[in-house]
């Protein structure tokens, strides 16, 4: 591709003329088109050196806008302020930064820009230039013609409109801001002497841009007061041509567009079913000992995290940021199809490409070619079969990215496609193609007690529903990547973001046939994980390439590759039948869960087992019958994601609770109170559970929350319906009774006089370093500055277990409690010896050792003095190792330690678009003492909004085994405008006197009950419980409308 830079329009036109040329202004839309598959033209003709193509001027009869005027210039331009329709369109087009580049000309020439409906409604005209010809055509007419390479838009002319009586513009998207358009609408009405002189209606965005001339004609000539808007609504629905795609139906686009136009011009809202009658909320007294978290509220407990300054300044070197001179660049060749028998992998040509240093395939694997945390069913490099579109087949190491990419295209795969298994139900049906030789049922789990059938038969109230949850993507900002090298003593170093270095080390050892002690894994710092870096990602390919080439190799997945290759949460269908007696006491629970594992098990068996373990959540149910099945398919691959199945189950359960409460009488708080499990009783599986149960306290806190008193019902302007909902939150910590769950850590004085606190845990953003620093300093009596957390490196930190399952908090606390005093005593002993004093007279203080009775606090010896006074090998250290506390139940996986919470959400349900907006979230949590206020607050807030995404917008969609949502354009995570207007986080810190388990982890607690709180709030507003998330606005609209 080459770029031409004409300086006159005639020169630009001279260059242009065939399909191999393309005019470019900002190029933002064009680059997206390339990603979508538009073949880049051979010649780009830059318009940026053409004179007088930028700016806005008032001319006779209207406004003339240069096509190179950027959208952000338009936004600030006073002339546009008089065209609110256009201004509104500009402000919702792309993002502020893209508007700095994108131009009005490009928005039009792309033919699907969000400005087009507004410009159509304003009857805009284009001044177009062809060689030797200048012409003014209406935008509408121009849009009817095919793209013409030799035709250049020279100006956009907007005629001064007749006095506008009413105008409207609305972009209906997938989230609140910076969203692709589902459909855009624009409309205006001009009135003269009481009669409508013209009406213009236009649509665009997610549909082909069009004027709705027939409908306009019906409106024109009428008196504004006489219009039958419901009739016009029907006409608009009929007039719009809208496609159905993976995200929204054509019907939805048409109805929502009609709603928007009719409301915008006629101020008439769609009909509404009768709203549910809300019971007045009985405000209860709150908890006096809950604390609020925040910089001001936390006061002296608010500390800057150790890694904050470097991260904010961009100085932190992530493992994907390491650049060294000899480093090669690695790339992975992935399967071209979702399911096939591999016949041959021919790498000959790739190996011969200049600049390629190494190519690896399954032939380079010296150990066992299978990995997986639970079962080793995933080949590191495929041998005879590919099972999903992200399966790794080969990898290359090259001198640069370009060469690596070219080499991938030279690897020849011979394969025979197999039928694609793309639905878990069908995967388990008779005769389905087997994804794995042993069949498609990865696992099936049953748990029952009592007599559920008899209990249902005798129940006063039974509710049954099937709840469907999405394939959520972790969406860590740093995609999978890192580097690997073999050092001088032959040790293989693999440095890539992860969540358990020692397990990665073990898995790599098994794959590569190299002893664990010859492999060093560095897994921190990581740019987000959320469970998505728990399983191996790029480590096998990096290791194989480094071993093969003998040179350092780096690699980072592009986002689209990360989407394709990475694990997601298992989509679930949860059929749940729940019964209570006439007093509102739960009698029976029946659950049938079917989950999609995708191509490989990874941690999905653990996810479904954990989901089943939370089938009754925090409630006592005497009769239970549950089953969970996990099916292999060719739908990507799934695994761990924050919440680990609890959040899906709590969505279903907490909706059932609200439904039963509404069926049998008491309010949902009272209903919950009647059914909460009693402290001191055995757990759901009959296992022993830890003390400090705080369910009643959390329910009391929820009952007292001010969120209930905020406005609800119809909003002031009538366009939204507001509701409040809640869910109880109950989540186990640790891996459970069955898997190994080691913990441990080491505290040691380093040569430079700093106390190193070494943990095999990973800093994935959660604030591990702050928690380590605060907790060790508190247990030892030293200052924060005396502590240096050392994490995520098998060479420098001991086994601490995985950074998952909300378990790191306990590990840090336990190590600090056990090893902290031991190291402190040793430091005091050394100081006493050197100073010739009685050790009992000395103690630790910030910076070093002081006299125990000293008032001045003067340091007798600094830690640096102590470090200098002993030889490096004699520097004091204290280590501890233990198993994460386990319960006594081994027939299935059971947790011992739980954290508790109650989550409340207030939502607004939009009557025009069906979209749900979360206004307020309140999170009450009880997880013992808070190790770091900022980290705790951050985890709960961040999990809340991740839960909002799960509930409202996120679903990684596949079609026949291929991802439809390939990047952050159509995989829609919440933007800043989707974050609630308020989030309040409370912590109840107390522990029971006999509680020996210390603070609980809260990494997952914050996401646990967000979905049911939102779903119950939607039901509070509308009377209907959404049984599928993300909540489909079309479902919302269909239940709102109807008989008035």
């Amino acid at each position, binding site marked *: 591709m080459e*770029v031409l830079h004409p300086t006159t329009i005639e020169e630009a036109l001279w260059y242009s003329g065939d399909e191999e040329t393309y005019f470019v202004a900002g190029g*933002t839309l064009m*680059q997206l088109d390339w990603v979508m598959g538009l073949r880049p033209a051979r010649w780009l003709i830059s318009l940026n050196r053409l004179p007088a193509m930028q700016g806005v001027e008032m001319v006779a009869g209207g406004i003339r806008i240069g096509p190179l005027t950027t959208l952000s210039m338009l936004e600030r331009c006073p002339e546009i302020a008089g065209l609110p329709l256009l201004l509104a369109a500009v402000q919702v087009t*792309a993002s502020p*930064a893209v508007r700095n580049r994108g131009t009005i000309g490009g928005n039009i020439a792309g033919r699907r820009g969000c400005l087009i409906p507004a410009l159509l409604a304003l009857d805009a005209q284009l001044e177009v230039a062809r060689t030797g010809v200048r012409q003014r055509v209406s935008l509408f007419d121009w849009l009817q013609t095919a793209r013409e390479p030799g035709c250049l838009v020279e100006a956009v002319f907007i005629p001064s409109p007749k006095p506008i009586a009413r105008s409207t513009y609305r972009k209906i998207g997938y989230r609140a801001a910076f969203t692709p358009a589902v459909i855009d609408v624009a409309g205006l009405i001009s009135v003269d002497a009481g009669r409508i002189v013209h009406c213009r209606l236009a649509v665009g965005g997610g549909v082909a841009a069009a004027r709705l001339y027939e409908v306009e004609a019906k409106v024109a000539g009428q008196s504004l007061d006489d219009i039958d808007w419901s009739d016009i609504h029907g006409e608009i629905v009929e007039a719009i041509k809208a496609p159905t795609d993976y995200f929204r139906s054509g019907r939805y686009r048409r109805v929502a567009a009609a709603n928007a136009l009719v409301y915008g011009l006629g101020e008439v809202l769609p009909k509404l079913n009768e709203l549910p009658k809300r019971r007045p909320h009985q405000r209860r007294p709150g908890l006096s000992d809950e604390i609020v978290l925040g*910089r001001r509220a936390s006061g002296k407990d608010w500390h800057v995290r150790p890694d904050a300054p470097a991260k904010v300044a961009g100085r932190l070197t992530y493992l994907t940021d390491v650049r060294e001179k000899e480093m090669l660049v690695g790339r992975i060749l992935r399967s071209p199809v979702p399911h096939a028998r591999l016949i041959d992998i021919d790498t000959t040509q790739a190996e011969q490409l200049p600049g390629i240093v190494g190519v690896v395939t399954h032939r380079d694997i010296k150990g066992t070619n299978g990995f997986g945390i639970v079962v080793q069913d995933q080949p590191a490099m495929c041998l005879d079969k590919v099972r999903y579109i992200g399966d790794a087949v080969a990898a290359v190491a090259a001198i640069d990215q370009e060469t690596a990419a070219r080499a991938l295209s030279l690897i020849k795969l011979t394969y025979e496609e197999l039928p694609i298994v793309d639905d878990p139900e069908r995967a388990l049906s008779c005769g389905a193609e087997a994804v794995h030789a042993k069949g498609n049922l990865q696992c099936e789990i049953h748990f029952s007690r009592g007599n559920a059938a008899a209990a249902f038969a005798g129940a006063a109230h039974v509710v049954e529903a099937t709840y469907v949850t999405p394939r959520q993507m972790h969406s860590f900002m740093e995609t999978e990547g890192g580097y690997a090298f073999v050092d001088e003593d032959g040790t293989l170093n693999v440095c890539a973001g992860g969540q358990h270095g020692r397990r990665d080390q073990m898995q790599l050892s098994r794959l590569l046939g190299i002893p664990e002690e010859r492999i060093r894994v560095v897994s921190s710092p990581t*740019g987000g994980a959320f469970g998505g870096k728990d399983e191996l990602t790029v480590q096998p390919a990096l290791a194989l390439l480094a071993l093969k080439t003998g040179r350092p190799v780096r690699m980072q997945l592009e986002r689209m590759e990360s989407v394709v290759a990475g694990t997601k949460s298992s989509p679930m269908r949860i059929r749940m039948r729940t019964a209570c007696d006439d007093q509102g006491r739960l009698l029976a629970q029946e659950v049938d869960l079917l989950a999609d594992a995708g191509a490989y098990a990874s941690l999905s068996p653990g996810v479904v087992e954990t989901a089943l373990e939370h089938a009754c959540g925090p409630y006592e149910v005497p009769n239970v019958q549950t089953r969970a099945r996990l099916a292999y398919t060719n739908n990507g691959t799934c695994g761990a994601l924050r919440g680990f199945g609890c959040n899906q189950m709590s969505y279903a359960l907490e909706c059932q609770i609200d439904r039963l409460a509404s069926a049998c009488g008491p309010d949902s708080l009272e209903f919950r109170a009647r059914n909460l499990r009693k402290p001191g009783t055995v757990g759901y599986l009959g296992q022993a559970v830890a003390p400090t149960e705080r369910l009643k306290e959390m329910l009391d806190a929820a009952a007292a929350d001010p969120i209930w008193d905020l406005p609800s019902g119809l909003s002031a302007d009538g366009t939204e319906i507001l509701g409040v909902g809640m869910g109880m939150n109950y989540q186990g910590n640790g891996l459970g009774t069955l898997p190994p769950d080691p913990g441990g850590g080491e505290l040691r004085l380093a040569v430079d006089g700093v106390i190193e606190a070494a943990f095999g845990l990973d800093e994935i953003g959660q*604030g591990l370093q702050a928690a380590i620093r605060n907790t060790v300093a508190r247990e030892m009596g030293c200052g924060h500055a005396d502590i240096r957390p050392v994490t995520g490196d098998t060479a420098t930190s001991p086994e601490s277990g995985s950074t998952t399952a909300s378990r790191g908090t306990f590990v840090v606390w336990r190590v600090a409690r056990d090893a902290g005093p031991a190291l402190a005593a040793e430091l005091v002993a050394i100081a006493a010896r050197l100073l010739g004093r009685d050790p009992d007279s000395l103690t630790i203080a910030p910076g070093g050792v002081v006299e125990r009775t000293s008032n001045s606090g003067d340091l007798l010896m600094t830690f640096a003095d102590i470090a200098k006074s002993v030889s490096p090998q004699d520097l004091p250290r204290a280590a501890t190792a233990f198993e994460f506390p386990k319960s006594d139940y081994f027939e299935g996986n059971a947790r011992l330690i739980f954290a508790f919470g109650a989550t409340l959400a207030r939502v607004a349900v939009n009557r025009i678009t069906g979209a749900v907006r979360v206004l307020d979230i309140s999170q009450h949590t009880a997880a013992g003492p808070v190790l770091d206020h900022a980290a705790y607050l951050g985890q709960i807030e961040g999990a*809340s909004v991740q839960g909002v995404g799960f509930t409202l917008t996120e679903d990684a969609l596949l079609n026949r085994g291929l991802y439809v949502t390939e990047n952050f354009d159509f995989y829609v995570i919440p933007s800043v405008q989707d*974050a609630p207007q308020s989030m309040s986080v409370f912590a109840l810190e107390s522990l029971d006197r006999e509680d020996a388990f210390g603070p609980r982890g809260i990494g997952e607690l914050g996401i646990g009950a967000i979905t049911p709180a939102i779903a119950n709030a939607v039901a509070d507003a509308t009377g209907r419980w959404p049984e599928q998330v993300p909540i489909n606005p079309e479902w919302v609209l269909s239940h709102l409308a109807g008989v008035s």
Partner: protein
Amino acid sequence: MKTAIAFTLNRKACTVDVAATDRLIDVLRERLATTASKKACGIGRCGACMVLMNGLPTNACLLMMWQVDGAEIITSEGLVEDAEAAYVRQGLIEENAFQCGYCAPGFTVTLTALLSATKAPTEAEIRMALEGNLCRCTGYHSIVRGALRAVELKGQAAAASK
């Protein structure tokens, strides 16, 4: 075909021999080893690669090198001499605005431009300015609090200098 592109990077003259359509983010990260700018989507959707181009926040993944010719580019690394950036960074640090931090350089660039263009932006203006920056860890509130703290710090400094 390679072509020589000259621009200023963090106030220093810089010439690179690249394909005209190579993206600035790839040149920064792959060629120049300036890795504060991150690449998290590559299609202008997440803002992790945000740089200032002639003073305006711009996605480096949407900048082809021919568009950078002659431009002044400031990355997160180049904000050290910027007074507004100092308030932004201080505010974000005090509020512990970030967790994994991968999006932090991009947010910092966007907020620095906002504080330069607007004397005392409100929460609504801050939210609008950040519509093109995605963060997965925080839920955004801590970042908005950090930005408001930066506005406060800037106001305090202005009051003190009067």
